[in-house]
């Protein structure tokens, strides 16, 4: 039996991360993947799909609902957490760090699922990096805007050229051992109070 026959459910309310994971699963040959983005009536949806593997964001509040399936097993095959074996400590650590939890149904060989879990961990990590880069880019953009505004204020009130305004900001920052953006921020705030 090939891994591509695994039926996988991805429960993630973040559409971007889910898309990144779904792409990765498709690339590695998993065609039978369903994304659940709305957790209302979660158990009913999962009963209907009857998956082999369930991948869910560690911080999803519906994890407790899902775990009930370990107890109530009349309606579907009984799923268990992937990390039921203490020899899996390294993978468990990696998964918790990445924010992934995974459940597989009873009787499924764990080796068949490891590749899926590894892939999920790496995709979740890639998503986190993407998030971090995005927020860095946003910060950089807003810092640049602040500096531009501070330069504008100096040019208007002190009649400086753009180069002079920037040099003044940089000199003050060096003297006060602060970042240019902090000096620019103070200047913009002071200007707002004054006006």
């Amino acid at each position, binding site marked *: 039996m090939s891994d591509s026959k695994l039926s996988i459910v991805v429960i993630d309310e973040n559409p971007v991360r889910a898309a990144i994971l779904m792409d990765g699963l498709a690339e590695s040959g998993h065609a039978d993947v369903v994304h659940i983005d709305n957790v*209302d*009536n979660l*158990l009913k949806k999962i009963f209907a799909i009857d998956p082999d593997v369930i991948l869910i964001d*560690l*911080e*999803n*509040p*519906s*994890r*407790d*609902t*899902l*775990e*009930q399936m*370990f*107890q*109530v097993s009349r309606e579907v095959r009984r799923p*268990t*957490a992937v*990390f*039921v*074996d*203490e020899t899996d400590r390294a993978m*468990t*650590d990696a998964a*918790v760090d990445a924010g992934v*939890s995974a459940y597989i149904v009873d009787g499924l060989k764990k080796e068949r699922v490891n590749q899926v879990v590894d892939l999920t961990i790496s995709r979740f990590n890639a998503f986190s990096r993407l998030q971090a880069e995005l927020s860095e880019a946003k910060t950089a953009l807003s810092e640049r805007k602040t500096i531009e505004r501070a330069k504008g204020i100096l040019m208007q009130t002190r009649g400086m050229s753009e180069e002079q305004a920037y040099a003044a900001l940089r000199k003050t920052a060096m003297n006060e051992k602060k970042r240019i953006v902090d000096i620019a921020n103070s200047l913009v705030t002071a200007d707002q109070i004054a006006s």
Partner: protein
Amino acid sequence: MLDSQGGDRDNSSDADARPEIATVHAGIIPLLDCAPLVAAAEFGFAEKCGLELALSREQSWASIRDKVSIGHLDCAHMLGPMVLASTLGVGHVRTPMIAPMALGLNGNAITVSSDLHARLKAAGMTGDDVMSGAHALKTVIDENLKAGRPPLTFGIVFPFSAHNYELRGWLAAAGINPDFDLRLVVIPPPLMVANLDQGLIDGFCVGAPWNAVAVEAGVGEIVVTKSQLWHNGPEKVLGVRETWAQAHPRTLRALIRALVEAARWVEMPENRLAVAETLSAPTYLDTDAAIIARCMAGALPASDSADLAPDPDFITFFRDDANFPWRSHAAWFAAQMIRWRQIDQDTDVGALAEQVYRPDMYRDAVRTLDLPVPDVDWKSEGMGESEGRFFGGAVFAPAEHKFD
């Protein structure tokens, strides 16, 4: 084993001994009984004991369990039965955990939708008999079956929870089979009210303040409180990994002392408003401070004021040995896990209770505080104060389960 003579009790500097680590990371779930943890962190009790307590609000009980078991959190606000389940390795990685103190007593209630409440009253539910609601529910379930309506659905917070066992006990005492006559679904506490409002469930058993929030929102009515069902029944505990406790004995002692002092302070009526205000913040319960304060006072709302008398014991943080981890509480939980087929029928309940609930550690930690502390680890549940209030009149005699 801790020696009962208190071998190093002469070492009075122990109370001041520096904890092994300065910062303790603890997880909480948005519920009123996380108050001792929040008060310890926010009102100086942890600091007084030489600790910084860093709290993180978690999204699910599963997340609490995973993060404690992996060491991302040092300890947490935990469901008593969850500590037993982790130790046994039921449902997840086997991680021996211990409960060296309890965080309070009571606090839960069973709430039903306004529609179901009206049907229960029509079927004979009265305010003065705690079992009448369950008997009325039996009538409603029978009517539904005859009429070919789908089964009722009730929400619980986790498979291994006092809530699950209380609801099941209450239903079963009225002849309702909770596994066949209705559906039980797990929903995180803060989401219960929305689920009831949307008609996805017909009722739930959850901790404070979410029952009161449902009534205030006009979507449900409280049918019975835990304190009516079992006066001074066990609830959340401080859960820690056994290996963490062994590696950090001074930290754990300091933490227990801080939490006990915080619990004593939380319970003082004059501090209610400050506690409620603090808990109402988005980082904690994210709900109305006035509702939290009324829950603390035991003044539960009801749309018809004749329905529910004030219950001064609705939730208990400190008095009546509320922080003492009774082994008979653990034994009752384990007995319920067996009753509802969650664990092996031949599990040694007594041995499990001795391993997981650690009154010895509690006594050791609080000996420098001027506190009355029980000198036995087991008691009969449903006797004394709670007589006749234990699920309609039963008694749980853990002597039968006592492990020698």
